[in-house]
């Protein structure tokens, strides 16, 4: 069977080096380049000075990092960057912990009310964030959470999507592993943390990537809950910065680049995990 499959594969691949394939590859490559043009133009313009902005060549005539120095000099961007990082990291840690704890409990314990809890959590997926924003705002202002990190973070500390994803994965963990832990006298929390969690690391990384990215780019809720500049996250700060710069496009592009470069760097480092994580989350979620 393997030999026929291999023979077929060989025949297909021999057939594949044909003009049609080359044309398809070329078109895909050109399409990919077109996809990247906004990002390339952004990066290129961030390296130009005000007099060169109208020169639309992609390679700057005399590239310089002056814009970056100017934008970073007053420390605002650094502050927004750290705010975003803090918020995204805290929310991600919370989701990785709680979503998997709840997913594990719903997947591996038998108790009355389990199904009810699962359906209740799942049903929150239908409620759009926008509907909750007004009550959250009311809650945040009553409890003094406006303009605080906790105010930005609290709505996302757990998600139904993450819980559902983790439940799916914990269901694939064999019960024997957990029983072995019980025989060894581990308590239930340790069994989850030490035995079950290491077995679902691909799912955990998928959840972490999605949560981090979602919070890093989040705009709507941080826009509502922050008033003071010092508490802005990077997207909110960038938006206010761009408005203030009016038509100084090279400065706006520098700000936009500063918001984009970190994610690009992380992607280039973790490309395989990120793509696999997106596939996992998309298929199981």
């Amino acid at each position, binding site marked *: 069977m393997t030999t026929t499959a291999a023979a*077929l594969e060989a025949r*297909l*691949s021999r057939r594949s080096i044909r003009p049609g394939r080359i044309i*398809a590859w070329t*078109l*895909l*490559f050109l*399409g*990919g380049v077109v*996809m*990247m043009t*906004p990002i390339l*133009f952004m990066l290129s*313009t961030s390296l130009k000075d005000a007099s060169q902005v109208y020169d639309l060549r992609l390679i700057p005539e005399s590239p310089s990092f002056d814009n970056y120095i100017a934008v970073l000099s007053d420390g605002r961007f650094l502050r927004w960057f750290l705010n975003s990082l803090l918020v995204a990291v805290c929310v991600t840690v919370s989701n990785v912990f*709680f979503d998997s704890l*709840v997913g*594990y*409990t719903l997947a591996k*314990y038998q108790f009355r009310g389990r199904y009810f*809890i699962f359906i*209740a959590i799942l049903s*929150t997926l*239908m*409620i*759009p964030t*926008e*509907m*909750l*924003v*007004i*009550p*959250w*705002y*009311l809650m945040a202002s009553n409890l003094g959470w406006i303009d605080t990190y906790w105010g930005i973070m609290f*709505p996302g*500390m*757990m998600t139904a999507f993450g819980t559902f994803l983790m439940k799916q994965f914990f269901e694939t963990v064999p019960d024997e592993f957990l029983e072995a832990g019980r025989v060894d006298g581990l308590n239930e929390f340790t069994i989850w943390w030490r035995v079950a969690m290491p077995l679902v690391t691909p799912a955990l990384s998928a959840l972490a990537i999605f949560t981090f990215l979602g919070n890093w*780019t989040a*705009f*709507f809720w941080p826009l*509502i809950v922050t008033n003071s500049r010092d508490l802005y996250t990077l*997207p909110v700060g*960038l*938006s206010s910065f*761009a408005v203030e710069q009016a038509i100084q*496009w090279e400065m*706006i*592009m520098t*700000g*936009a680049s500063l*918001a*984009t470069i970190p*994610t*690009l760097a992380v*992607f280039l480092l973790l490309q395989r995990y990120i*793509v696999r994580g*997106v*596939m996992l989350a*998309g*298929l199981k979620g």
Partner: protein
Amino acid sequence: MTATALPVKSGRVLDRLSLRQKRVLWAWTFLAVPIVFYGAIRFWPTLEAFALSFTNWNLLRPAAFVGLENYKRLLVDPLFWQVFRNTFLYLIIGTPVSLVISFVIAYYLDRVRFMHGFIRALYFIPFLTTAVAMAWVWRWFYQPVPIGVFNAALTWFGIPQQPFLRSTTQALPAILAPAVWAGLGFQVIIFIAGLRAIPTSYYEAARIDGVSEFTILRRITLPLLKPTIVFLVVFSSIGFLRIFDQVYNMNFNDPGGPLNTTKPIVLMIYQTAFKSLDMGYAAAQTVVLFMILLAVSLIQLRILKDR
């Protein structure tokens, strides 16, 4: 029951529990914090949003019950119908366009071996960008000559300049473009994952039978890809119905303009709640958004499941 008596007593109780009961106790312990969270941060606010939609609360005066007044007001508000139309335009253009493009890319990219990872990265990277940053890049692209890249290209080809964001007809597609662009990478990856999940034996059998590529696509690939298609249709539709970041940033001086022709419902909610402070009215709009999302998802699932 005093504080000192409690540990002793519960210690005895714990000893008496069976192994099974202990596990149930653990389960509820694990769920304790999440139950409080989902109750306080999800369910209670949901009920509150419904309740607020029946009041005239506006941050200045205490909320008073006004019945269906907000909903009646919404039905006769010409702005709402404009916004309703815009929101559905984002959906009706955005979802099919983005799914067709991403499927074509995924279909061919899946067969590419040479530099597969690199080409995939070119399509995927825009998905990782911040919508706000890219909204400003695209906004710059749409500027008139000599600033904007698009108009420079049009002029180069001898085509007259286009107003793009300043036009009541072109602004909505112009704002939709970066949203489609940024979402493509995700859809391509999911489509490729779906394509890979189809057993190759189907294709082999069809090829041995000499079936044409197009028939294979229509009779084998697309039907077997249905779960992926259903997921992406529902997922991307919800995304387009909730579009906000791009609209808010690309026409900042007059968000939703020109003349409200690009304003989606989420922007209307934002302005009603946090600019006009008309919380009761805004809550009614969020309830309408919720019902639109629910209805669209259910209709799509119904239609796609049947086929």
